[in-house]
């Protein structure tokens, strides 16, 4: 927030959730699932790396987070979980993946409760390259079509 307008009021940081005055919340907490702290880390563009390997498996609709297509990629340092985003975006761009494919991905690793996952910004296979995320890591799967629409006179499919 602009500092000239937003003035941070002096903070009082020592209010703990379970002080006696907040005992009313004790049952709420007791009934609450308590998870080890693990917030999914954001895409950190400064930590981008290039990973090459062979596809061990491709899953269009993974049963583990993040939502979307995943690869298990065998690299020189071991197998890693690769997140690609929406499978439909790959399909729309005629980018197919299968066991045994050699691929090169640019992206950043993120920690989740299920373990580390590599978030892909660019994937390359053979002579084909596809950008999957913005520079800040946002998946392109929804927005990209509008960009194509603006450039290519897309087809409406049904009433609007």
């Amino acid at each position, binding site marked *: 927030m602009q500092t000239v307008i937003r003035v941070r009021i002096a903070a009082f940081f020592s209010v703990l959730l379970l002080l006696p005055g907040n005992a009313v919340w004790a049952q709420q907490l007791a009934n609450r699932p308590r998870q080890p702290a693990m917030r999914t880390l954001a895409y950190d563009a400064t930590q981008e790396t290039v990973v090459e390997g062979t596809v061990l498996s491709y899953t269009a609709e993974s049963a583990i987070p*993040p939502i979307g297509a995943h690869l298990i990629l065998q690299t020189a340092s071991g197998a890693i979980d690769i997140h690609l985003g929406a499978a439909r975006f790959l399909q729309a761009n005629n980018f197919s993946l299968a066991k045994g494919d050699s691929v090169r991905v640019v992206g950043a690793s993120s920690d989740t409760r299920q373990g580390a996952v590599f978030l892909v910004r660019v994937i390359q296979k053979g002579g084909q390259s596809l950008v999957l995320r*913005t520079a800040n890591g946002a998946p392109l799967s929804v927005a990209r079509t509008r960009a194509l629409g603006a450039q290519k006179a897309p087809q409406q499919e049904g009433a609007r």
Partner: protein
Amino acid sequence: MSTSIKRWVLLAAILLASLTTACGGSRTPVGGPPPPTGNFSNANLKGQYAFLMSGTELCSGSSSFFTRAGSFTSDGSGHITGGLEDVNVCTGVFTLQFTNSTYSITADGRGTLSLTNSTGTTNYSITLASTTAGVIAETDVNLTASGSFQRQNVAAFSNPAIANGYVFDFAGVDYSPNPPVPTSIIGRFSADGGGGITNGLFDANIDGVPSNQQAFPQGAFYQVDTNGDGTNFGRGTANIAGHNFAFYIVDATRLKLLGTDFPAAFSGEAFAQQNISFTAASLNSGFAFLIGGSSSTGPIATAGRFTADGAGNLTSIFLDENNSGNLTLLPSQGGTVTGTYTVDTGGFGGGTATWTDTKAGTFSFIFYLISPTNAVFQETDSNITSDGTLLAQTAGPVSPASLAGDFAFVWSGVNSDGEEDFVGQLKLTSASGNDATGIMDFNQFSVVSPNQFFNIQFSGPFTINPPGTGPNTLTVTTTFPSPTAFNFTAYVVDSNTAFLVGAETNRVSVIAGSFVRQP
């Protein structure tokens, strides 16, 4: 979501696949639901209503964000006698007039709406929350969307009616950077009653990068249409926070806006701001919030609550974040949460809220107050573009008896196949056990196998954890064609409203929404 959960967010693909096979496209499942009960009828949808929704369309074989806003007039006996809408779709922005359209309302307030324009007919499922408002989901094969509608006050269809302060929240896709990115813009302005705008302030979050507070660039205005669309439908145009919009007036306190700077696509609402000078003391109660949008891993939805003490401190903080299927709950195991908030000098209602879980880290937000009990809310953590609503909570305690009754609901979500939108009726009783029942229609967008589901019944427990103003749980299971569970954390705002965020642990989905009491 926009790309947001309203954008808006979700379900288990495998279970939906079984639903798809068994009942896609059928309006009445085998062994159909019992006849609806209640006092609603076609007569309860009578007058002129403004609507706004956003969702996903099929465009050149791919999914694409779109939004629509407009006005329709219903005659109380099943006919839409007129109307107008603006749509921002992948082929451009268009203003379209309705002809020969229809609707139907059943006794429980649920119903259907079919709107015909020059491109064809679009279809919707709706649920009335009252005779003046309801929730809506589009149920076409190639388009899914959800939103709300409210009865319009034709006496407010003029520039002078739009005066004094307004707070706004827009979400969608921006193109000022290339490639296109998810964007949220919240802020406030003062309307002078003659089309002029002053004291415009906004915070944009573009691709997870907060702009910090900015003044409106030159060129801000609003103008109710002078070609007849203004007086007939409450339509107008505006430039707000540097973006062009078409808007539809609900009344002097509420506008529905649709961005017209194609290929960018925004939509949202503006609410009349209480005419007071806001300070930290303006926030002095419990609050519940619900926001949605996207992160660098995919769709994200977050609900929670806190208590503000009027002096800059936040306590009793709870949060449930579903980030592309990864759940984060505060307080975390072994952690404690403390927080603070600020309200800007100048009295325009902008402010910040920040809290830190000793194990899970810091969560940061900004807000613009509509009143001391209502605000628009935006997350400002890195790589997250998410916004929504902050509402003052009842002091509680909340009990099953206080919540018993009938509710209209709308949920929106995303699964690995795409967006899904749900609309229906939820019934809560004060009995222990399976005290929640309901019926819904929903639309599952898919490039490959889109499906629409109608009259799907569900039931399950709504468990209130005393005092009830923190996280509660709603677990409902559909009864047809096979059991499919929806697990939510529910934050009760008051006896009439609650926020829901999906908390699935056995499948990857993000879903969120709310329910509102019916009379």
